[in-house]
């Protein structure tokens, strides 16, 4: 090339010197600026609902937020004060049971879908079912658990609620876990096979650990969703005005309180005290869900 020849370079530069300044009047640039602006605007509009809900909850429920609401039982009738400590515990217990059922099933199912039989007929059917289940109205999950557990055991209970919530969590966990296991690069799996790993060793030592952040994110999102469910709990957990653990003994097979049902019950009552508590409970529930979401973010971060 003639890069060594200085005269030629100068010639080229003069001949082809392009106009490089940004001009808003140029149609393409104008269009681009307008589109960027529109994207910003819609992003801001999209976050308005969340922030307005949070704002409303803090304004109306924030002033009752204190130690009392965590340690006291719900007030009856014209009682003053009170809290919903039992409902917080109830929500954690029912969601915990749901997670205990759905996480192992969900992850193992995802291993099957992603690794063992990804193109098979069983996998096809299972994947279709999971996708359909994600759209299942939550009240139907409640009715299902009512028929299967409540009628069979003869009582509303935390396990019944756990089954209903597990049904709602399962598809989310299966599908997100499958997706993140599929993202594990094939060369990495090849390397493991090349080292003399069995199939199960490849799954346990490479696929699952590499996909773990994504799997945990899915689990946390499912948990967050389940924590806010009301309809299935009305059919399965009902409500209770007492502590889950009374006198050091936990009675599993009795109705159990939950934040969402408490909000549902109290918001319809004619007493100011209860309505205020419903607002505070809403705030606590939203904060709980937010906590799970933040946890999902933190766990989803790649460690190495």
């Amino acid at each position, binding site marked *: 090339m003639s890069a060594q020849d200085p005269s030629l370079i100068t010639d080229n530069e003069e001949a082809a010197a392009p106009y490089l300044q940004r001009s808003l009047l140029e149609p393409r640039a104008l269009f681009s600026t307008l589109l960027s602006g529109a994207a910003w605007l819609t992003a801001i509009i999209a976050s308005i609902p969340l922030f307005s809900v949070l704002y409303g909850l803090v304004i109306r429920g924030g002033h009752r937020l204190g130690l009392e609401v965590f340690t006291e039982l719900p007030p009856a009738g014209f009682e003053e004060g009170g809290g919903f400590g039992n409902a917080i515990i109830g929500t954690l217990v029912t969601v915990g049971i749901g997670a205990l059922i759905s996480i192992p099933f969900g992850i193992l199912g995802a291993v099957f879908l992603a690794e063992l039989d990804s193109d098979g007929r069983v996998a096809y059917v299972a994947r279709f079912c999971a996708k359909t289940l994600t759209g299942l109205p939550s009240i139907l999950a409640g009715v299902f658990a009512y028929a299967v557990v409540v009628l069979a055991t003869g009582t509303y209970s935390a396990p019944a609620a756990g089954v209903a919530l597990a049904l709602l969590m399962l598809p989310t966990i299966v599908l997100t876990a499958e997706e993140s296991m599929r993202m594990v690069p094939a060369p990495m799996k*090849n390397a493991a*096979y*090349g*080292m*003399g*790993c069995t199939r199960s060793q490849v799954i346990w030592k490479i696929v699952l*650990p*590499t996909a773990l952040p994504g799997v945990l994110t899915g689990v946390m999102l499912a948990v967050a969703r389940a924590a806010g469910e009301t309809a299935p709990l009305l059919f399965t957990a009902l409500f209770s005005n007492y502590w889950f653990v009374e006198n050091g003994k936990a009675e599993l097979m009795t109705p159990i309180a939950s934040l969402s049902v408490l909000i549902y019950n109290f918001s319809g009552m004619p007493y100011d005290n209860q309505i205020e508590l419903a607002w505070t409970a809403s705030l606590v529930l939203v904060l709980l869900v937010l906590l799970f979401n933040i946890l999902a973010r933190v766990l989803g971060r*790649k460690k*190495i």
Partner: protein
Amino acid sequence: MAHNDAQRKVVIDCKLDKVFYGDFLAVRNSHVPIQKGHITGFIGPSGCGKSTVLRSLNRMNDLVQGFRFEGNVHFHGQDVYGSTVDPVVVRRYIGMVFQQPNPFAMSIFDNVAFGLRLNRFKGDIAERVENALKKAALWDEVKNKLKASGLSLSGGQQQRLCIARAIATEPSVVLMDEPCSALDPIATRRIEELMVELKEKYTIALVTHNMQQAMRVADKTAFFSVDISQGGRTGYLVELGDTQQIFEDPQEQLTQEYIRGEFS
């Protein structure tokens, strides 16, 4: 290359009759002995089946749907494709380094220790990891950051990490499938030097699309070609011999044409 080592022991004796992917006949009639302490280079045009043959040696192709192998591969007196042989165990003795560096998403140390832990190695893991990294000429660059991610290294370093990982378990043969094709010339040169250093202890089979690389490092060279006469594209072994002989005095017309075509 002298002929006095013609009697070297054959570690892997691959007598391949036919390899199919589904109905597609990918490779036929190739007898490839891999001699102990040598680097055997596989060269040939694209689609000639050199990678397929290499990956058949430790049954990596079993992972490909529809793969079928006819023939046998003798390794220490046993047929690797025998009905009672566990391909997983085969791969523990015949290690592999791939085209794209593929470290696991874990620390440098854990990458190298992976195979040792897999085999429930009872000795000093740290010592073995250090030795493997030293043999792979990577130790000086990583000794102060063994906890860093294997993925944080450069491409050439990643490939040397993969080599360290492959030799940490002391396999008897290491298969290398175009190990330098994703690397720059300097990194390539280092890997080549490394192969020559390693070959006394670990027999190496090397697929390369770079003929100069085969000339530089391989003791024996196998030339594969594609047969399109039957309508398909079937690869087969044309000629195998000492590297010098293959490049300077090829016996087959096809080898001559391929080598001349590349250099003229």
